[in-house]
């Protein structure tokens, strides 16, 4: 027996998957698509600049739900890409970067992303291992740990992106309390309203996944992001077509449940 409703899912998925692959390889022939700038990336640049001017650090955390499974893991991967970008900016302009994270599983990747920026900019002397601080034991521990760290260190900019739980409110409001610029972002719909509520700049949903590709400047990656819009148009056409067929009495509900 085959899972109900698998056919449309599988066809849609593979179509989008193959189109994105083709798009990525188009870049090899020099066909690069254009993207609009993500406002939140501009916010990170502004935040690092502000930190340098105020002689204060930048604080980064990848959300309290950085687990190794499901879309929590993919969001963490995206967040670590943003950390690498922030680290490079901090190294370039001379800002101290504080990193807090809630699960030790990600330590090697987080450490590498933190160090890579400073090494790429030729400033290994700015690497301070003590600035990487784990707060292990769940989101209560992480949130209270980060809140205390923010009150102690008073960073000029706070970046909290990734699989966010209630740190959206805890970290966001503490950042406001110390007068920091808050940059948030998540693909978790439950937390997205709180992130928007507490942040000055936001990576909304898919923007979180796209941020790494934006910052790389790699045409192959940029093409995969640009072609996502094609997927959205495709879904819109499917929706309108579905409505018309349904109104015309075509039994598409039965077809879709195959």
């Amino acid at each position, binding site marked *: *027996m*085959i*899972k109900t409703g*698998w*056919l449309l*899912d*599988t066809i849609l*998925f593979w179509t*989008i998957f193959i189109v*994105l*692959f083709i798009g*990525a390889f188009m870049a090899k022939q020099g066909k690069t698509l254009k993207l609009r700038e993500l406002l939140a990336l501009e916010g990170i640049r502004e935040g690092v600049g502000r930190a340098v001017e105020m002689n204060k650090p930048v604080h980064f955390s990848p959300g309290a739900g950085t*687990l*190794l*499974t499901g*879309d929590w*893991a*993919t969001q963490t*991967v995206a967040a670590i*890409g943003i950390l*690498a970008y922030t680290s490079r900016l901090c190294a370039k302009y001379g800002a101290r970067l504080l990193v807090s994270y809630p*699960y*030790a*599983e990600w*330590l090697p*990747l987080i450490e590498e*992303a933190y160090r890579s920026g400073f090494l790429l900019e030729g400033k290994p002397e700015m690497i301070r291992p*003590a600035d990487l*601080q*784990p707060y*292990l034991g769940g989101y*209560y521990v992480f*949130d*209270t740990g980060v809140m205390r760290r923010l009150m*102690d260190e008073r960073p000029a900019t706070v970046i909290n992106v990734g699989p966010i739980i*209630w740190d959206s*409110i*805890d970290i*966001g*409001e503490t950042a406001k309390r110390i007068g920091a610029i808050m940059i948030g972002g998540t*693909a978790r*719909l439950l937390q*997205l309203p*709180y992130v928007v*509520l507490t942040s000055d700049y936001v990576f909304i949903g*898919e*923007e*979180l*996944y*796209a941020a*790494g*590709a934006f910052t790389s400047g790699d045409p*192959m*990656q940029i093409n*995969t*992001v640009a*072609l*996502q819009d094609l*997927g*959205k148009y495709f879904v819109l056409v499917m929706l309108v077509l579905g409505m018309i067929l349904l109104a015309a009495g075509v039994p598409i509900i039965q077809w879709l449940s195959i």
Partner: protein
Amino acid sequence: MSILLYIRRNIDRAILIFITIFMLIAYPLATTTDFGKFMTDWYTTLAGWSTLLGAWAIIVGVFVIVKNNVMNVVKKTKDWYYDIVTLVALVIFVGAGFMGGYTGPSMRWLSTYVLQAVSTALLGIEAFLAISAYYRAYRLKNIEAAVLMISSLIILMWMGPIFEYLIPGISNVAVWILLNPNSAAQRAMFVGIGLGLIALAVRSMLGRERYGGG
């Protein structure tokens, strides 16, 4: 480049591509067929490996915590005495775990009277933090803020039974907001997030997503 070096550089991506294709084939198959059951069992096993990784990573995490806190105490950094509290708590919790196991009486006592108490305190703080965030967001700066404020007020009034008495039909409006504009926006977000996930998988398989196994 030697073959060994090539394998070493690409082994992670090979594993990623293999597992991704494996999962994609496993998805449409139900558990009732033998092949589907085999695939589902393997999926469960693969997902279980992440738990194993997590268990090992805890050792690394404890090491980092001990190192950082001991260094803070030795260097007498700002508020270093809190680091002693962390170290003492760590010893107590590990000791309790060794004495009676994770579900033993000591650990249960610590969980009930220390962890839960602290967690509840944080929940209490969150309520005030949320109110302060709402207060800032509900200032009528522009038309979007006005729409947000009015729709939130309607939902809030729906939660308070007295408003249904004072303004009959308020619950219908609230339910309409939740089921129509709210659901529509959430579904649009879902589509975008799904596409973003597929693009991330493609980039990882192409070796372009550095922190995604690429």
